[in-house]
């Protein structure tokens, strides 16, 4: 079976600088893959290149085994849903209408049903009629994730979906994305929270200065060496009942 998303030796240049350098990555249905790396490593650029939002200088991107460039807009939209890092919403539309934008290809009443189901899944069903600009940041983040889930796409791509939220909201959001992977979707998320990424993802891909350093199971991907060399941390992932926990401290600058 072909991968839901495959990047083959993708290089992205911007203003003469290589943002991604020969990056390869594949993710299949039923898997949740976390993309981690320091600020500026190229995580968001990789997601944008995967969706055709960022042109690549060389290499190839395939969605469901087909070249990205050969797919029409609606075909791409049917194969991949995207939640960008930016959570700004221009107008104070009700949560139900915002979530229904994910299912815009459905008839309006059916799209509303799907939207309400996704809002309920994210425990904001009772806020369906409230304007998104009248909500807290956490509530709005759930509504925007509901919009992503409403796409029902086989590949779900979320850029920092849990950043800036309280711990309960972070866990809820990652649990729901995990659930979609269990149900068969391919889920690709970026995260700065290494412990959370390690807890919820089947594999982690570590980007460092635009290069793919390693793609492996969390304990291997975040080995003490990688933590030290890529993230500048002295420490390790420690197993615990709730999942891996990161025990680390910042490395002195001189030892990096």
């Amino acid at each position, binding site marked *: 079976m072909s991968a839901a998303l495959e990047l083959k030796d993708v290089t992205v240049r911007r203003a003469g600088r290589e943002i991604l350098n020969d990056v390869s990555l594949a993710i299949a249905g039923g898997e949740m893959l976390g993309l981690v790396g320091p600020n500026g490593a190229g995580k968001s650029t990789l997601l944008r290149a995967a969706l055709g939002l960022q042109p690549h200088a060389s290499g190839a991107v395939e969605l469901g085994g087909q070249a990205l460039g050969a797919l029409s807009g609606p075909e791409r*939209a049917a194969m991949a849903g995207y939640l960008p890092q930016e959570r700004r919403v221009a*107008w104070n*539309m009700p949560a139900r209408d*915002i979530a229904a*934008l994910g299912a*815009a*290809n459905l008839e309006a009443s059916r799209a509303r049903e799907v939207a309400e189901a996704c809002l309920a899944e994210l425990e904001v069903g009772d806020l369906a009629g409230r*304007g998104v600009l009248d909500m807290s940041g956490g509530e709005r983040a759930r509504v925007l994730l509901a919009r992503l889930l409403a796409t029902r796409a086989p590949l779900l791509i979320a850029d920092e979906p849990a950043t800036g939220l309280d711990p309960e909201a972070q866990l809820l959001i990652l649990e729901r994305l995990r659930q979609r992977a269990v149900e068969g979707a391919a889920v690709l998320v970026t995260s700065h929270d290494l412990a959370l990424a390690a807890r919820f993802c089947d594999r982690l891909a570590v980007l460092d200065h635009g290069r793919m350093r390693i793609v492996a199971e969390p304990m291997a991907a975040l080995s003490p060496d990688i933590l030290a060399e890529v993230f500048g941390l002295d420490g390790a992932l420690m197993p615990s009942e709730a999942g891996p926990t990161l025990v680390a401290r910042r490395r002195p600058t001189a030892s990096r």
Partner: protein
Amino acid sequence: MRLLVLLTLLLAAALALSVAFGETGLSLSQYASAFANPGSPAAEILFGIRAPRACAAALVGAALGLAGAVMQGLLRNPLAEPGVLGVSAWSGCAAAAVIAFGVGAAPDVIELAALGGALGAGAVIALLAARFREPETLILFGVALAALGGALTALIFNLSPSPITLSEINAWLQGSVANRDWSDLGAALLPMVPGAALCAYAAGGLKMLTLGEETAAVSGLPMARLRVCAVAGAALLTGASVAMAGVIGFVGLAAPHLVRGSVYDDPARTLAPSALAGAILLTLADLVARVIPSEQELRLGVVTALFGAPLFALVAWRAARSWRA
């Protein structure tokens, strides 16, 4: 739907008021004779002069309201209006140019120049809209285009040899629907109908843009095409409005704000009510321009700015309070 019915009724009432009242007072018997005898002087006043003028105001208001709603949706900016991309400025500049060159007296030349100026500026912005996703880029180019159009108009004023020409340009730029007849309305509809159709086609894209350019770009909608249609539609509507009535501000800015809350802030559903609200506003503004006693009839653009600015400030105040709450 209820909102559309309500606004349509209000527009009908505004049109009726605008036809019923004017500078010349009519007695009840004269109103009766106007309906009974189509050839009477009263009928000529009501249906030959006031009715086309009222309909012209309504049509221009509708076009500006719709264009304003499209611009706000496209640019994701509540401060956007038809003039923000320079379309009004170039339309006004082209009209001023033909008046200054002394060819404005020929039939329909000013109107065609105004429409041409709007379409020229609209074409530049539409090309940019196809190329750039970010609204900030369009706004920056639009501001530059508007500044250039404004500067050229100022240059025409500067170099104009005759004070009469200056006064003509000035009067035209301040906006009016005086002396418009039914054939003028027919001519204005020619660009307005396709303009409105393009805006209606772009409506779904405007709704998706609520979530930002990138989400819209991967939504499966042909966003580049929809952006071009939105700009072209707004340019046609604005150009036709300037051709019909000169440069009139505030209606395009204020009309969408008056109705937005009633359609749950949905940019697509804001379009039709904005057109109706714009039509009501401008019909009433023209009525005010006619009935306020003054030596010289007030210009429509002046009235809309005088009444529109405080009204808009009130709307902004209420919106700001709801955002803060």
